[in-house]
């Protein structure tokens, strides 16, 4: 995995609360057996009409969304299904961070494993971000600080090991494999 230290970008705002992973990636796109190419299906039912044409009022179809790497979403994004296809789709589309006041557990875990940084902020910061779509902000993983355009700094929580992995491009599978001796010892101890 590529190390990530800093994400600097304009934001895209989708203010709906409880954006579930069925919205992020509808079930009919889960029949893929690879990870690639899911960006085109991201938010498919909000993004395209029945004829497959882009719905102009949806933010991802508007020119200012192009190139944005930070998605600001309403409270509790990623609830529902455990499908990792949701963060794969967000990453493939070009997003590198998701900002909200609450991020659902499984989606947050899945995001961390795919270079998509989940950033939980306080209500006031969130309210400001929702009101200012397109704001140029930065997310500094090293210091766990989100910087607003006026220079205000907001720290965000980040599990220390996940942060270490993102900063150093360490992949968790490799780390777990290095634990095999301890796993074998455990299995012997419990007679498994």
């Amino acid at each position, binding site marked *: 995995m590529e190390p990530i230290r800093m994400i600097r970008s304009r934001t895209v705002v989708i*203010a*709906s*609360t*409880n954006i*579930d992973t*069925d*919205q992020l990636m*509808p*079930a*009919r796109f*889960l*029949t*893929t*057996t*690879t*990870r690639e190419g899911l960006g085109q299906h991201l938010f498919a*039912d909000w993004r395209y009409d*029945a004829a497959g044409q882009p719905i102009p009022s949806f933010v991802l179809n508007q020119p200012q969304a192009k190139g944005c790497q930070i998605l600001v979403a*309403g*409270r*509790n994004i990623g*609830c*529902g*299904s*455990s*499908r*990792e296809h949701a*963060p794969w789709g967000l990453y493939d589309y070009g997003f590198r961070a998701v900002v909200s006041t*609450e991020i*659902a*557990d*499984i989606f947050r*875990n*899945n995001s961390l*494993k*795919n270079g998509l940084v989940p950033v939980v902020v306080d209500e006031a910061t969130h309210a400001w971000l929702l009101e200012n779509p397109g704001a140029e902000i930065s997310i500094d993983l090293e210091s766990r600080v989100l910087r607003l355009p006026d220079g205000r700094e907001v720290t965000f929580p980040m*599990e*220390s*090991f996940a942060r*270490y992995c993102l900063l150093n491009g360490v992949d*968790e*599978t490799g*780390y*777990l*494999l290095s*634990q*095999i001796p*301890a*796993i074998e010892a*455990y*299995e012997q101890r*419990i007679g*498994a």
Partner: protein
Amino acid sequence: MNPTTLFEKIWRAHEVVAQTADTPAVLYIDLHLTHEVTSPQAYSMLRERGLPVRRKDRTLATMDHSTPTDADQLFGRIPIKLESAAQQVSQLEKNCAEFGVELFAVGSPHRGIVHVIGPELGATQPGKTIVCGDSHTSTHGAFGALAFGIGTTEVGHVLATQCLLQRKPKTLAVNVEGALPAGVTAKDLVLAIIRQLGVSGGTGSVIEYRGSTIRGLSMDERMTVCNMSIEAGARAGLVAPDETTFAYLKGRPRAPQGADWEAAVARWRTLVTDEGATFDREIHIDATTLRPMITYGTHPGMSVAIDEAIPSDGDAVYQKALSYMGLTAGQSMLGQPVQYVFLGSCTNGRLSDLAAAAHLLKGRRVAAGVNFLVVPGSDAIKREAEALGLDRIFKDAGADWREAGCSMCLGMNGDTVTKGAYCVSTSNRNFEGRQGVGSRTLLASPATAVAAAIAGHVADARQLS
């Protein structure tokens, strides 16, 4: 030793390496359930790294999400209509053959929805850690197992190492006391719990369901409750094992047998939250005040009692949900016309659900214009239901009796609700488009589903019997 919670006991027993400030715990997984949708990329990872499945004896696979429920397609008499689904099924067969993983494929008497077959086989047992690339893995917590959903990268971790990296979650006690009133089911109870907690109220937590009401539930009912823990944001829900649990498991093919059985039960009896142990948070529910529940919105927290009006105080997001659903604030759900009824899923697709539904349906007819799909949770349940003649009751009433699978719960296999149509569904999610693009899902119990099928609109099942 300090009094500890059930969760804490299971967690500690599975710590290969305890968590530190810098590193999460390495948690051992006793049972890994897999299915066709969330496993292909995990097998690709094994292949890329040249790794085997480390503990084949702790890994089971089934196909359920994208398999057809139409017998001709399922058994290959005609091709599977959805080509992508067919491909995913054959990919799973290939992966399981190559890596030596036991697979309950089409034709196996044990095939079914992953969360239905684990308990049915007796593979789901108290005190185990159980994971699956599927959020409703919480179902298995009904047996006092620590069971939770994981993503595909983590499926790869478990295949390769039989372990996961995990931070210890918080604990949340949901205490339910009192007898459920007549006509109020476990599904109504869990919908009421989710309404009270909110859809993110359980985030970061493992729920333990406690109290006299929970003790009085059958295993099927406990599974219905634990199944929907994730709809309150909790990755896992637990019920302490007791005589009901042991009676259910005894004699099941993968349960301990003979002398091992006695030893296992003795061990399982210690799996309770000690007197005096504390939870990070507790809520209390009085079961005696509950009524049948039904959802009206686009997440499982948006529910009302069947005879209650849709609340009218809501923000823009709330209004958007109502407009998607084509419903208005202040309206009663009773009398709302429906075009589909779905009885099935890992929430309510077990034998007792089918039996309860058939009991209400017997001698009655499905209303004209209603498409009533009945999908057993597993092949075994289908056989048992047929042995009891339940299939006849459904068919005679005009319902569509199908092969086992997830089916219309998520519409991946082509069983979908048409755009704008209403479906009373015994499944667990009413998200926008969950049952097909533009579908409008009303979550409810099997009894409420049958009442709607007979009336052609939302109706109160308590007035049926």
